[in-house]
């Protein structure tokens, strides 16, 4: 009886803390990712070996090792909290990667450790999904056209290059993170990390070609801090 009451009390305390510290309150960090210098020119992809995909792109698409926007904006940069935030449990919502037109959509797929990753093939051709993991286990699965999506999980944080061996131009990154405070820089290079409780954080911005940068930020109360990242672009 006593233990039961004890459990109930703990539950109540737990519920109270989640209400107090969870929820959408707290500070936030937002900013912009830009580059300086001349980024490498992206080459058009020759998909003539895969007519079903070539047909989907009236004008040939280019490689995506560096994607830029107006005003020197740098896209596809994963901005995340690398220190200061507790590890999060995997969200119930799966992360999704779609293979369409022999491209990975989106190009960079961030997710939390043990979060479900849904792999979809929307092409009329076979793909093989081959994450070249070094810390997690490397696997390689075939997904012929018309087969239903499959799910996978990664047990440890890692930046994993992904490729399709059948279509050598297809390239992506699975970014497995410890917590769900992350964002990918959009069309204007902007990002925002909302719902941050007060505290000291280390923010890391990672780009597949230019590596990573970190900045320390302290959040007190409900304030919104601005953090900008500038990557040095190399023309080769």
């Amino acid at each position, binding site marked *: 009886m006593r233990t039961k009451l004890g459990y109930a009390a703990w539950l109540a305390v737990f519920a109270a803390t989640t209400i107090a510290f969870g929820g959408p309150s707290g500070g936030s960090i937002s900013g912009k990712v830009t580059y300086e210098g001349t980024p490498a020119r992206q080459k058009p992809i020759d998909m003539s070996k895969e007519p079903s995909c070539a047909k989907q792109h009236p004008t040939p698409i280019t490689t995506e090792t560096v994607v830029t926007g107006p005003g020197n904006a740098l896209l596809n940069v994963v901005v995340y909290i690398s220190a200061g935030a507790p590890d999060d449990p995997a969200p119930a919502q799966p992360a999704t990667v779609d293979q369409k037109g022999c491209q990975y959509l989106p190009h960079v797929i961030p997710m939390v450790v043990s979060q479900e990753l849904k792999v979809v093939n929307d092409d009329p051709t076979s793909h*093989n999904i081959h994450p070249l993991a070094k810390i997690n*286990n*490397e*696997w*390689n*699965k075939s997904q*012929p056209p018309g*087969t239903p999506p*499959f799910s996978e999980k990664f047990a440890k944080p890692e930046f994993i290059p992904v490729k399709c061996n*059948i279509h050598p131009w297809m390239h992506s990154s699975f970014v497995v993170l410890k917590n769900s405070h992350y964002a990918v820089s959009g069309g204007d290079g902007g990002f925002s990390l909302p719902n941050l409780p007060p505290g000291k954080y280390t923010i890391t911005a990672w780009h597949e070609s230019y590596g990573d940068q970190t900045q320390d930020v302290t959040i007190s109360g409900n304030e919104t801090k601005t953090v900008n990242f500038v990557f040095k672009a190399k023309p080769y």
Partner: protein
Amino acid sequence: MMRTRRITKLFLGIAACVALPITAAAQQGESHIGKVTGHSDAGKQLFYRYCWGCHGFRGDGNGENWLPPSSWLGPYLNIQPRDFVAATFKCRSTPTGTLPTDQDLYNSLVRGFVNSAMPSWITLTDQNRADLVAFIKTFSARWKNEKAGDPIKVPPETKLTVESIKHGQELFQKLECWKCHGQEGRGDGPSASTLTDSNDQPIRPYNFAVGSRFKCGATNQDLYKIFITGLDGTPMPSFADVIKPEDAWDLVHFLRTLQVTHTSPELVLWESTKEGAAQIASRKISGTPTGSGIKQ
């Protein structure tokens, strides 16, 4: 009386605490193949006698016999020796992304790898090979933190019929095996020249038209396992989720007919049909050993 009992219990407890890690450690340095138990201490001696020239002092596949293709001496081995530190293995009975069983590693030692510099270690004893398996497993922490995967179930082979070969041929098209292996299975498909393994070394798809042995065995069961489990670390993916067992056997039957130089029951049956005979005749290379009268 009560007190002595308590003391005995205490001692038993301490003994258990001490003994448990010792037995666990002993198991980590062991391999189990049937009734044979291999020990890593014995395997270490063998490794540094027979294996390290290729697999390297640290077991990372960087032995002195391995020169990357970029080196000015050129490649001496055509395939980089396996990196036991990464612990990614091609020949497994277990699903993609999992560790192989002790028996899988042992079988690789018995068999050797066709088209590579890895010979068959049939000259060693069963105990020697089991010891080597135990030692190979000490190179990666994966063996401490993970268990080997559950071996896939290979259902009994379905009956070989002309229909099953024809259905296999359809599957070869549908699953786009030809993208890498080529329409005739010669390893010359449109994607073949671009393939690299997980260490960015060029790698060739298997050429069915020469020989009878595969990378991971020579039987129909071995062939079934290869495409269901995939060859981890290479471009060959797993088809476990996308092919039904009975379809998989049909594909096996068809793949055998691509081995035009190896007389298998599948090839004989296929050659007895009009369509099959024409196909095989067009693929066979005839000629004399001296090269005169070669017709391709």
